[in-house]
């Protein structure tokens, strides 16, 4: 601001015009009012004029160029300031949208509003049949307990149905687990798929009871914005196999039922997936379900990330009820498939890495169709796609993975685990 007390730009321009008209050099010319300016400004103006004259520009060209330069600089400064202001607005938005809710509600535990009543027809079937009377007369000699039960073999319907999948004792290998209640086999596919290098994991799951299929919230309780490392969640929950879920902790819409507890029931515009107590799985488009009916029918788990991947005939869908980016982006994926009651699969696809491009939704849906699933549902993906087996990460999550809000898991029930 030094020396700018009486419109120096105007006076300097007048001086240059006077120089141009008279042909007198700047050093020889005395411009009215020029004496009011500091020596530095006068010297700079004279230097600029000499430079312009040296390259053969007229005074008019000099003035036009100078004005353009000033305008260009002004526009550039304005654009930069606008960009800066836009960034600041986004930072403020992120604070109110992400940070503040976490600070204020991060530790608020949300209690279920009700419990799903298990339909009588369901509770009578897949649960274990009552132990035979012999259990109340356990003799001191353990050898006598090996006698076969007289009335019933004590197995659930699914244990009988999938008898060839279960083993009498726990058998664990690098990629499989079997016990009297659970059978898990993980197959890893790594190679070219649809012209791209892909790596994905298919977990074939048989359970003896619905109790072996559970979900687990971060830190063991449902709270807004609660999150925890996937392996820690798997270990804390006793999971043999776990996969990330639908990240239900940071929003409140749709029906949220977990392990038979209803947390909320709100309108939703996304596809819904329901695992019922009887072991069946159904996927619904937003307009095709009645929340009250779903809860009354014995919903055991619900998921609402979506979309559904197979149509009612078990064929891979080609258009999905989701955003363009989620549908078209080649990304890490996690999905849940259903064959029949007691028989399910988890599929996790790596992505955004050299060993795996990631999948678009049509490719991911095709996997479930090829597996023979009749229902399939997409879960949260990207860095959230994490599969754990026996307390360790099994896949290679994008970017090292992230903390999760909840997991789907296969675990021994407390009475069978001990």
């Amino acid at each position, binding site marked *: 601001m030094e020396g700018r007390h009486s419109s120096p730009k105007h006076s300097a321009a007048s001086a240059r015009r006077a120089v141009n008209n008279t042909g007198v050099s700047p050093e020889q010319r005395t411009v009215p009012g020029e004496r009011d300016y500091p020596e530095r400004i006068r010297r700079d103006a004279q230097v600029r004029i000499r430079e312009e004259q040296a390259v053969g520009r007229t005074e008019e060209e000099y003035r036009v160029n100078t004005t353009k330069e000033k305008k260009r600089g002004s526009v550039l400064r*304005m654009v930069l*300031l*606008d960009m800066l*202001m*836009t960034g600041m*607005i*986004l930072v403020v*938005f992120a604070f*109110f*949208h992400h940070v503040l809710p976490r600070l204020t509600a991060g530790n608020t535990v949300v209690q279920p509003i009700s419990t799903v009543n298990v339909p009588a027809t369901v509770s009578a079937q897949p649960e274990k049949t009552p132990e035979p009377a012999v259990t109340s007369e356990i003799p001191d000699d353990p050898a006598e307990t090996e006698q076969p039960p007289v009335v019933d073999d004590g197995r659930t319907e699914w244990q009988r149905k999938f008898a060839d999948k279960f083993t009498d004792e726990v058998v664990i290998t690098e990629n499989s687990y079997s016990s009297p209640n659970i059978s898990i086999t993980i197959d890893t596919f790594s190679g070219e798929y649809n012209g791209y290098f892909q790596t994905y994991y298919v977990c074939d799951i048989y359970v003896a009871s619905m109790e072996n299929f559970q979900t687990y919230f971060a830190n063991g309780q449902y709270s807004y914005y609660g999150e925890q490392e996937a392996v820690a969640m798997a270990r804390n929950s006793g999971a043999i196999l776990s996969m990330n879920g*639908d*990240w239900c902790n*940071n*929003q409140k819409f749709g029906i949220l039922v977990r392990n038979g507890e209803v947390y909320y029931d709100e309108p939703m515009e*996304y596809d819904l997936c329901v695992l019922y107590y009887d072991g069946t799985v159904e996927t619904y488009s937003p307009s095709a379900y009645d929340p009250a009916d779903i809860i009354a029918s014995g919903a055991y788990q619900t998921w*609402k*990330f979506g979309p559904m991947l197979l149509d009612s005939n078990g064929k891979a869908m080609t258009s999905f009820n*989701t*955003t*363009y*980016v*989620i549908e078209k*982006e080649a990304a890490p994926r996690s999905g849940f498939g259903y064959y029949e009651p007691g028989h399910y699969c988890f599929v996790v696809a790596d992505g955004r890495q050299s060993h795996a491009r990631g999948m678009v939704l049509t490719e991911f849906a095709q996997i479930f169709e090829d597996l023979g699933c009749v229902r399939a549902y997409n879960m*949260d993906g*990207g860095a959230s796609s994490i599969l754990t087996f026996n307390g360790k990460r099994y896949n290679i999550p994008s970017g090292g993975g992230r903390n999760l809000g909840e997991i789907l898991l296969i675990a021994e029930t407390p009475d069978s685990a001990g």
Partner: protein
Amino acid sequence: MKIMEFLSHLAICMALALVVITILNGFNPLMSFLTSNTTKVFIFIFCAVVVVSSVGAIVRARK
């Protein structure tokens, strides 16, 4: 006039921010980028700024 000019720039910036938020929403709609209360307040402020700056521009043009 300075205030009107600032509001015009603010409207541009808020519009750009809304574009960014909409793109983010496409990546993960369950993050509620477009449906949260924060976004509703943001859109309300944006509308107010646009109305004021537009009315100001019309008034200036008529003078």
